[in-house]
């Protein structure tokens, strides 16, 4: 081997010093008694190399770069040969930061994909390849004791979210969950969450329908509307309560709210509104008597109230 670079550390903190040494074997430095070893960082010559002649005839040069400010740079060990500079070895220098603590970890149980999807804020760029892992375990109490472990969830490259499949989950038991970030300069661990998957279900909004007038149904009073709704199909087994909000389409009136409605009804009459006026209606639901998140508001349903 002609020349060989060895580094004090392959990866250092950005701005920290780094020391490199380069050994030039005899079969490469047969040029003259004292071949001059030179260092290049990327394309720039670096002064300050201390060269010495070793007993076994090899040449050794050592250099310390006081502050490595490149996140990635090529360091070359060269030899002056005639009027050219011969590169004998190269080393890749890397610098960056240890991972910041992942924060804002939050999870939602997705009933369509049947998986618990957690996301987090990774924190500032470390300039180094950093692996994030979502770790979790099943627990009986409030996640103080670990019952069964769950396989690590490794997000796709560069993503800050990960999905734990249904087969690893117990939907009604506590789950301890956190995010670990690791790179060459260190490891950091987020705060621990303790949650029950079914308590963090992401409900899709219900669907509202207008009711076709039909003979069996008595005619509507003035200023009334008739509609029906049904909750999102994958959540039919979940007991829910819903809220209906309505506002006239024209004018600046704010939303009026009708609360605590059942999750399904074949016919609902809303009265006390302005007669023959176009209204916009929206509904949202949440798991009820058991914990849960409100769904988003449903797409609007436009209806016109009966005349005076």
């Amino acid at each position, binding site marked *: 081997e002609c020349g060989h670079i060895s580094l004090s550390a392959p990866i250092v903190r950005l701005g920290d010093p780094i020391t490199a040494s380069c050994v030039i074997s005899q079969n490469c430095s047969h040029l003259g008694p004292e071949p001059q070893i030179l260092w290049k960082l990327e394309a720039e010559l670096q002064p300050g190399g201390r060269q010495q002649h070793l007993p076994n005839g090899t040449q050794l040069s050592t250099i310390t770069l006081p502050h490595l400010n490149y996140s990635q740079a090529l360091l070359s060990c060269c030899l002056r040969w005639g009027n050219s500079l011969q590169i004998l070895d190269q080393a890749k220098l890397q610098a960056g930061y240890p991972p910041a603590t992942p924060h804002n970890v939050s999870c939602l149980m997705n009933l369509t994909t049947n998986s618990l999807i957690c996301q987090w804020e990774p924190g500032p760029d470390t300039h180094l390849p950093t692996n994030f892992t979502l770790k979790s375990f099943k627990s009986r109490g409030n996640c103080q004791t670990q019952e069964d472990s769950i396989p690590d969830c490794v997000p796709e490259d560069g993503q800050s979210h990960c999905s734990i499949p249904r*087969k690893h989950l117990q939907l*009604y038991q506590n789950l301890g969950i956190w995010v670990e970030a690791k790179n060459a300069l260190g490891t950091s661990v987020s705060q621990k969450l303790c949650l029950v998957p079914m308590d963090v279900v992401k409900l899709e909004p219900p669907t509202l329908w207008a009711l076709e007038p039909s003979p069996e149904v008595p005619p509507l009073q003035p200023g009334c509307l008739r509609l029906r709704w049904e909750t999102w199909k994958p959540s039919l087994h979940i*007991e829910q309560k819903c809220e209906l909000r309505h506002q006239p389409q024209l004018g600046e009136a704010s939303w009026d709210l009708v609360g605590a409605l059942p999750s399904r009804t074949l016919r609902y009459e809303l009265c006390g509104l302005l007669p023959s006026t176009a209204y916009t209606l929206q509904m949202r639901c949440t798991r009820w008597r058991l914990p849960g998140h409100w769904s988003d508001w449903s797409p609007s349903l436009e209806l016109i109230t009966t005349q005076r």
Partner: protein
Amino acid sequence: LGPASSLPQSFLLKGLEQVRKIQADSLELQERLCAAHKLCHPEELVLLGHSLGIPQASLSSCSSQALQLTGCLIQLHSGLFLYQGLLQALAGISPELAPTLDTLQLDVTDFATNIWLQMEDLGMAPASPPTPGTTLTFTSAFQRRAGGVLVAAKLQRFLELAYRVLRYLAEP
């Protein structure tokens, strides 16, 4: 002593929710078996059921006339444990049905675990969990599908009884 003063309301509400989910899962399994293999009526498979030896889990301690809470919970758990085993034997029923069967099995297992943990919390749990009973063996794809129809039908009847008793226990 109210029928379920010792059982937390959240446990009963969760149980009702899980029963509804399992009913929906097994209904989907029945619908898919009917669509894909024209096996739509369990009554057509009673004779085969006898020869396969598919058991029906009992909930005698849960009848509203003679409700015996600990016995009822134990029967609920061992019934779910039995169906968990029967569903396992149906594995490989067909690629199209595998996801439905997997979800059904996971939901049944979850519900059985919740009941067991609740019994432990209340000091009602038997000394040792039940051991798997006789396992079903199917010698043909048809038998596995017919077994699927019969197991799903028996599970639905078991769940109807379970739902009634949980709702009774959850009454304020």
